[in-house]
């Protein structure tokens, strides 16, 4: 049998800490806190569900916004084709190298996205003269 005042027993008693305990009020106040926590969580969830339609609308809007440039690209391709068609209808008296230069010049405004373009026939003639 262990000595009541032996070091082992004293250490065991100290570590066991049997005298320490919490009151009933602790349990009650803790349950109240948990209840509060529960109601806070519920209100947060309610808040989240309230925002779901807005979030969905936002996502749809963003998706539409994202896909819109694709339509623009398609339009751009069409415009290029138009320019190509226009370039085919260059005056027949022009030589092949001159046609190439004019085509290149016509392509410049498209690439730089500048609205000005050399559309008049006199401008073409002037450029041909300058080049020669």
């Amino acid at each position: 049998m262990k000595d009541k005042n032996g070091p082992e027993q004293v250490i065991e008693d100290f570590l066991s800490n049997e005298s320490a305990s919490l009151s009933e009020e602790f349990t009650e106040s803790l349950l109240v806190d948990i209840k509060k926590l529960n109601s806070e969580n519920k209100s947060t969830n309610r808040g989240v569900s309230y925002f779901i339609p807005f979030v969905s609308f936002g996502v749809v809007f963003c998706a539409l916004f994202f896909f819109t440039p694709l339509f623009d690209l398609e339009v751009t391709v069409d415009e290029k084709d138009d320019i190509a068609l226009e370039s085919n209808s260059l005056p027949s008296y022009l030589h092949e190298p001159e046609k190439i230069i004019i085509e290149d010049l016509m392509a410049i405004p498209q690439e730089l996205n500048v609205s000005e373009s050399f559309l008049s026939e006199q401008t073409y003639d002037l450029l041909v003269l300058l080049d020669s």
Partner: protein
Amino acid sequence: MQSIPNLLSSHGALLEMSGNQDRANCILSDDQLLMKEVAKQCPVAMEKLITRWKDGLFRFFDRSLRNKADAEDLTQRVFIRVYQSASRYQPKAKFSTYLFTIARNLLIDELKKKNRQQISIYSDELIQGQVAQTRNEVEEWNEILDIAMREIPEHYSTALLLRVQRELSYKEIADIMKVSESRVKTWIHRARTHLKQTLLEYRK
């Protein structure tokens, strides 16, 4: 053990939190079943768990932190965490292993927060000075052991307290502390040796 009807009738205020249907759904058997009920937000099950484990946790924190207010606060935080994670609880191990894993994590956080200073050597004068204020022999020894507990690292004291207070096996302690069993044995042995030496030195 208190029967379910007794438990339900003795806590009128608590029952206001739940309806009659909730009462009928509460199955109170062991801790793991209680946790399932807590996951369903059964307040009676939560109360049962708190009543069962509050003192055990408090004793553990009290000896680890040597501050009753902090020990009470941490005990409360353990139960709140248990409640919050009840829906994710998987009864793989003993409930005590789960509970004291949470407790230990909170303890480590608290010690970090407090930036506890590990005091390597206490002079005899310091021990004598503190102990002089205590009244009887047992209080003196407890004071000495309290000081000795401050000198050992957290993992030594946690392993020792889980062994003595909760009577957990080395395997369970190893699971909680995520180390090998042999290491747990070493820590417990070193902690005991230190406490014993400190006490014997004081008695001389």
